[in-house]
């Protein structure tokens, strides 16, 4: 068998590729390489913006991602929460996706140190899941107490001090949308930014980042944190090592493996094509 045919058979065999990919993910985690993480100017700009927020500011945080997306979004969300809590900011969490209560409880279990010393109802509130998509976002922008009567834990929202301080969109200094869906971004741009000009910050999966860039470029958001890379950078900035940093070596090696396969695929294609041309 020619070497080219052997090469083609190897890259064509999905079992080989899948096994190599699994090893490329697991081995750097078990034995970290420790490649340095440089901070991009865009992540730094987001960090600086939040540092300039006034002490004790009110922040709205929408958690709209499925459990699978935790790896890309949760580390950045936790790093942001840490930075905001360190500034004494107060956060209202909400979710317009059914998995909201689930991901919030998982987020809290991953970062008990970040929430320690913070009082529920005063420093943070979780409103739970509100169905309705864009209608829910529009309704919450008008009035939180007019939309939901209790939070996720059954406490009447009108009795929570934080909600009494910040009951509508214009009471918030920043709205952070942590999401895996482009629809949620559209809802907040349309229902929070366009009518009320609330500053928005997007924390999104890498895969939806290209389609969200136009909103950031048009000034409809103050910035964007994309995927595990931005999460790792933010963890470095806030000084709390988490899943973002732990994942970067594995990301590098698995990306390198895929690049090698792409290179081999191109070499096989071009060698075959030129040999077919020379035969003619």
């Amino acid at each position: 068998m020619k070497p080219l045919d052997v090469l083609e058979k190897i890259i064509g065999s999905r079992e080989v590729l899948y096994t190599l990919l699994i090893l490329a993910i697991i081995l750097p985690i078990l034995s970290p390489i420790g490649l340095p993480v440089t901070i991009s100017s865009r992540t730094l700009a987001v960090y600086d913006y939040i540092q300039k927020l006034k002490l004790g500011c009110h922040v709205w945080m929408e958690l709209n991602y499925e459990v699978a997306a935790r790896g890309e979004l949760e580390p950045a969300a936790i790093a942001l929460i840490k930075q905001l809590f360190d500034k004494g900011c107060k956060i209202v969490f909400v979710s317009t996706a059914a998995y909201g209560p689930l991901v919030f409880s998982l987020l809290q279990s991953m970062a008990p140190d970040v929430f320690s010393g913070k009082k529920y109802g005063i420093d943070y509130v979780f409103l739970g899941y509100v169905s309705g998509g864009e209608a829910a976002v529009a309704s919450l922008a008008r009035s939180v107490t007019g939309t939901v009567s209790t939070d996720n834990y059954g406490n009447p929202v009108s009795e929570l001090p934080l909600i009494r301080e910040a009951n509508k969109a214009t009471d918030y200094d920043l709205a952070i949308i942590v999401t895996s869906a482009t629809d949620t971004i559209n809802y907040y741009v349309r229902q929070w930014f366009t009518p009320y000009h609330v500053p928005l910050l997007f924390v999104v999966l890498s895969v939806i980042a290209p389609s969200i860039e136009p909103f950031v470029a048009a000034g409809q958001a103050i910035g964007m944190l994309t995927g595990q890379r931005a999460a790792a950078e933010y963890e470095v900035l806030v000084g709390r090592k988490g899943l973002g940093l732990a994942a970067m070596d594995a990301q590098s090696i698995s990306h390198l493996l895929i690049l090698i396969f792409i290179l081999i695929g191109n070499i096989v294609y071009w060698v075959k094509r030129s040999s077919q041309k020379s035969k003619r």
Partner: protein
Amino acid sequence: MSLAVRRHIPQLIVSIIIILMVIFYFFYIDKTVSSQMSTADKALSDWAVIITGFALIVGGVDILRYHMIQIRKQGIKQAPFSAVTISLEIIMVILALIGLYLSYVAPYLGITITTQPQFKWMYTYLYAPSDAAMYSILVFYIASASYRAFIARNPMAMLLLITAVIVMLGNTTIGGVIWPGFLSLRDWVMTVPNTAAFRPITMGAGFGVILLGLRLLVWREVSWMGRRE
């Protein structure tokens, strides 16, 4: 029932609500009227919030019906699996209803639907990991598709490949080791050509939604009513 009640009145409701909500948003007469409009606008949004909840329940019931039909059609081959689906769905709903009952009858316990202990156990250890695994299994298919998709057959494919390589290396720390400029280059690709490329798509999506709204307004869009007549 007559066509008016079956089709025309629902379509009329759609048109009236769209017109009213557009008026509420764009028109200002005076403070009192504006405040009343705002209240009415919010009320309509709240109605959609509540009705969406019922739509989700209908979706769950559909899955139940589908699996019951599967058991009848496919017999013993499918029965154990469909039984797993049906029983878990019913168990989760029962546990949620227990949480709801306790939230009214014994609020001092602090138990609601989402904090009911057994419900929480099921969603933490059964739903969450299987949901995560279902979404992430795509990595294998994307990896095997990538070396086929990234063949530089012509100038366009070459540009696609070069951009993908730059962004892949910029996204990872190994790119910084190979050449520190990959990060800045990736940021440039994302903020300049990528933004410009997706801007027409964003605008096109906007035009599409406007057209859909106008079609609903003039009764040209009827797919939301279903096919039966």
